[in-house]
């Protein structure tokens, strides 16, 4: 998700990812990033909430909060590491959060999630 020319000539971009960790079994991570690009410039950016949710089928097994963040930078990112719980069906990981960008009295927020299967 991005806002082209959000701060005059720069874009505000939000990203999320769900990934199974390669170095430890039975763990996955939810990632979030807010940043500017084309070109990167310093603004107030972050997110108002960030969470990692693990589902077994559609049953919610665990939900971990990553908190809010607001910083004066070109980019900021964070991740939540989750130990998987046992599951008889398909396991899903979800990275959710509301991104926030402030520049020159203008604020935009974007609430969305990324969900993927965790093998």
């Amino acid at each position: 998700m991005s806002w082209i020319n959000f701060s005059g000539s720069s874009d505000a971009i939000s990203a999320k990812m769900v990934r199974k960790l390669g170095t430890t079994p039975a763990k996955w991570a939810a990632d979030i990033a807010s940043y500017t690009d084309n070109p990167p410039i310093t603004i107030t950016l972050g997110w108002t909430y960030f969470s990692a949710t693990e589902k077994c089928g559609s049953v919610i097994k665990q939900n971990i909060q990553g908190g809010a963040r607001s910083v004066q930078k070109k980019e900021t990112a964070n991740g939540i590491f989750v130990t998987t719980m046992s599951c008889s069906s398909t396991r899903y990981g979800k990275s959710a959060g509301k991104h926030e960008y402030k520049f020159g009295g203008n604020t935009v927020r974007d609430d969305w999630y990324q969900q993927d299967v965790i093998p």
Partner: protein
Amino acid sequence: MYKSKRKWLIVIIFLITLVIISAGLFVSNPTFASIYPQLFSQSNQNEPKLDPTSFSAEDLSTNEASEMAQNSLEQWEKKILKGANWVHLLYQINSEIDNGVILPDGKSMPSSYLEEGWYFINENGLVEKNIVTLRDEFETIYQQSVLSGSTEYNLTFEDKMDGAEPYKLKLDRGFTQYLMEVDALHIPIKYIDITNNNKSIKEFSFEEIYETPIQENQIAKPIQSAVVVGLFDNETGEMITYRKLLKCVTGEQILFEEWHLLIAEILPVAPSSVLDVLENVK
């Protein structure tokens, strides 16, 4: 002769290209990585890492242990994953970790509960529909989910996901796959035969030791290792118990998850209460 060599060279180049392309497909979600490679590499550096060298040499080869677990599981699957039947599974789940789930009534979901599943197995041995209920012993429901057609419903949170497909029921709740992942990281698995109440049991266990203590978001103290135990009934192949303990740097042990299999049965027809719930989501 020259033409033949050239043909083989083309074939080899084609195969190498194919391998490179295939490897690329298995890299974690490329979208995030490609749009912001610096952040992607930062988050990879933060991953916890295991120290497989700290285990004693007397442990069994992991291959041997995971194959034994796989054989037990297959024995159980042959008996229970028969087509056109309902599988009924009831587990007691225990944990000392706050799962962070807030139910629609504003209350926290307990860490310990009963998980009851009714799964209809189709002719291909796959789950075609199911009802899973997390509840207490007095039938107070914490969450209930339904798979019907290609849609999964969470009746408690009034949420639904489309695109579901028939799946293979993991009778061991993923333990054997866990053993294989452990095997790939060269972590030894201990195996012993034990007897409990005249029942012969296979016990598999291993310890994941982290290179540096890791901070889990739901646990205040850094974790230095995880100890995992799985028990199989030697006669039936049923996986009956699983336990995962997290060891803190302070020496304290926290029960991350434990489950006990209470009921595993196959029935030609599910109870009317189960069928009614399925009927009502259509």
